[in-house]
């Protein structure tokens, strides 16, 4: 690219900025085409039903060869050898039928009961904690407990002697243990504990733990080849503690050693906010093509306002109603697709007769969700899906979705070749997918067995720019009420910059930008229950950013080091008052670019 091109590109970029926030609206397209959105998926008109082309042949030859080689290596790893070893060692029967370890101390059981009582997604059966492991590392003492409750099998780690350290809880579905042919099923990996610093960023210990099959003598974890350290193994579980992990080490792989000395390697999914890795390069499996395209449709019981599932606990309703975020209407039901699991989904109407359907996932960790206009929810297909993970070190992602009445079953296909059904009940699909076996493909079928929806979940194997080098704190703000936020910046592997927003003590969000600006200001919003933050990057010639709110309020902010971090005043973080527009201005006040922000509410 010569100088002329550079000038031209710059002018063109400014002339018509890339509208990152512009939202496609397929339902509107259908309306303009007079196709319409079906009132009932079962009565689809011919124009909305058709075959979908085969998947694009985008896989490059070299990448395809590499993927095939990796797949072959993986199959060789998990099928003949792994299967033989696991069968020989007895699988996870201790967890499925027995009671590993010994009863937990009464005081610990009481603490756990109290925590469970406060949790909205309470366990279906009162769990009895079993003490599996107790180790002392440095000044701290680590205790690993386990329990079964319905279809959930869980591990809970408590730590004494470290501040900001747990307890940590992670669960797998019982069926995962039943079908697994692995020797080790990690549930948490490389979770930092005992954070120190301001902001707290240095972990005093890094822990990983999970289930082990009967007969496993030892487990070793390592950040790389030849650098492994031993974990404690007992009572069907392992616990690995890396003391003084200030260097940001990440456990990426491990080896399980059987009684006969045979060794089976396994991998750990890295699920930190600033780093992810998985089985990049493996192709997704399972049907890639929708056989029957269905748009529109309804959730019959929701339309009819039938009392499916359970009613919404008044205390939970109050909790959802607190703060400025989303207010739900009077009709709300709690659906538990697998009655023996604790994952549940709240399906509700939005307040104000807005024609929106709201879903909130209830886990042990908390509540998260949002609302979508019903006319848009099923404009692309019969499932409104979402997936992700919550909490550091998680080895399982959660897939959730609301389906129209046309969906009869949903299945997940893993990169390892395994497949199983995802729990589906009352139009809610909700289940766990192991991150280390991604990319995964979730497939929805209608009653005759035709594929009506396909979603590929790349998970930690997702490609894209990553941060590199050190993080530098650029700014921090306090929201009142609400959390404080710290914005940091690092270089990106793509030559651009990565920014990290830490809501201190709560969560961390990471964004990586390309080197070239798509527009002079590239901002985003982080909402919490009680506050909202506007943050992002601006071009070097942007001297100020003016935020405009729906109620006419506006404020002008000064970027620092090319970044902006702002805590939206509490009165502006609610419907009818939210930020709607940002305008970047140069030193003379000339507008260089503008960006629409938020949902417009």
């Amino acid at each position, binding site marked *: 690219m010569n100088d*002329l091109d550079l*000038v*031209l*590109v*710059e*002018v*063109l970029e*400014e*002339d*018509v900025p*890339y*509208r*990152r926030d*512009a939202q*496609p*609206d*397929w339902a*509107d*397209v*259908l309306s*303009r*085409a*007079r*196709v319409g959105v079906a009132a009932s998926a079962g009565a689809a008109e011919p*124009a*909305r039903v*058709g*075959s*979908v*082309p*085969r998947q*694009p*042949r*985008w896989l490059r030859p070299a990448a395809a060869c590499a993927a095939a080689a990796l797949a072959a290596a993986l199959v060789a790893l998990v099928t003949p050898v792994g299967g033989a070893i696991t069968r020989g060692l007895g699988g996870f029967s201790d967890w499925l039928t027995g009671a590993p370890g010994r009863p937990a101390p009464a005081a610990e059981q009481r603490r756990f009961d109290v925590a469970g009582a406060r949790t909205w997604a309470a366990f279906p059966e009162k769990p009895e904690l079993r003490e599996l492991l107790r180790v002392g590392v440095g000044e701290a003492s680590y205790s690993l407990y386990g329990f079964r409750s319905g279809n959930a099998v869980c591990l809970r780690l408590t730590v004494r002697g470290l501040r900001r350290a747990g307890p940590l809880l992670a669960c797998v579905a019982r069926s995962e243990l039943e079908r697994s042919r692995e020797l080790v099923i990690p549930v948490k990996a490389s979770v930092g504990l005992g954070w120190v610093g301001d902001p707290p960023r240095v972990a005093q210990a890094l822990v990983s733990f999970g289930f082990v099959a009967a007969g496993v003598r030892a487990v070793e974890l390592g950040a790389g080849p030849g650098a492994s350290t031993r974990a404690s193994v007992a009572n069907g579980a392992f616990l690995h503690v890396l003391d003084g992990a200030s260097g940001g080490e990440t456990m990426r792989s491990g080896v399980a050693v059987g009684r006969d000395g045979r060794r089976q390697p396994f991998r750990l999914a890295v699920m930190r906010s600033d780093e992810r890795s998985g089985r990049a390069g493996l192709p997704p499996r399972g049907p890639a093509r*929708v056989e029957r*395209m269905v*748009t529109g449709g309804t959730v019959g019981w929701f339309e009819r306002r039938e009392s499916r599932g359970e009613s919404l606990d008044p205390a939970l309703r109050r909790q959802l109603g607190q703060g400025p975020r989303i207010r739900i209407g009077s009709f709300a039901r709690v659906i538990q697709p697998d009655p023996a699991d604790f994952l549940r989904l709240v399906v509700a109407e939005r307040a104000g007769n807005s024609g929106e359907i709201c879903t909130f996932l209830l886990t042990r960790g908390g509540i998260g969700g949002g609302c979508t206009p019903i006319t848009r929810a099923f404009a*692309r297909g019969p499932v409104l899906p979402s997936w992700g993970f919550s909490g550091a070190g998680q080895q399982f992602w959660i897939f959730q979705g609301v389906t129209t009445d046309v969906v009869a079953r949903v299945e997940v296909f893993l990169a390892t070749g395994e497949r199983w059904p995802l729990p589906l009940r009352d139009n809610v699909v909700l289940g766990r997918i192991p991150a280390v076996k991604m990319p995964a493909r979730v497939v929805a079928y209608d009653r005759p067995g035709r594929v009506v929806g396909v979603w590929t979940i790349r998970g930690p194997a997702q490609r894209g720019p990553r941060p590199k080098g050190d993080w530098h704190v650029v700014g921090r703000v306090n929201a009142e009420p609400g959390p404080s936020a710290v914005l940091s910046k690092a270089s990106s592997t793509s030559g651009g910059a990565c920014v990290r927003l830490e809501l201190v003590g709560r969560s961390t969000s990471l964004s990586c930008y390309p080197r070239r600006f798509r527009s002079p200001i590239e901002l985003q919003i982080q909402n919490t229950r009680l506050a909202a933050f506007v943050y992002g990057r601006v071009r070097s010639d942007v001297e100020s950013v003016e935020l405009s709110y729906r109620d006419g309020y506006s404020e002008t902010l000064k970027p620092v080091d090319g970044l902006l971090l702002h805590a939206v005043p509490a009165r502006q973080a609610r419907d009818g008052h939210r930020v709607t527009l940002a305008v970047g201005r140069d030193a*003379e006040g*000339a*507008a*260089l*670019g*503008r960006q629409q922000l938020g949902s417009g509410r």
Partner: protein
Amino acid sequence: MWRTPDPGDATMAALGHVYDRGYRRFLRVAEAIVRDGELARDVVQDAFAGAIRGRFDYRGDGALEGWIWRIVVNTARNAVRDRALSQLPLDEIDDEQATKNGRSPGGELRALLAVLPERQRLVLFLRYYADLDYRRIAEVLEIQPGTVGATLNQAHAAVRRALEEVPR
């Protein structure tokens, strides 16, 4: 992202896929042509609505995405003609910038872009905003690939002249 089409490619699902994946690029090119963000949105929505209605006319003799790009560009051009917008040079923000930077290379270039011959502008937009290669641009504009290169050269030459004429 281009591929050889299969028969029956212009299904609702395929169109929806192209729409979903390329919406912002379609929007950007449309906005560059019509010089109005709201109108550009209408152009893209109407273009895809037209593609749905006319999907059985798609013969599969080129990439589906190219066929849709052609519809989007033509819809945008028609919108310009219908609303007599072809001579509307700059939007509100650009007016402000042009005033402040009227003698800067950027300001000159913006003014130049607005009055370039239509084909030169379209080639520039499809090259820089849509990131299409010469072959695809030729498909969209229904011209020869060689003509794309020549047109782009003409546009570059005009830009270079404009730069040289900017007082230092």
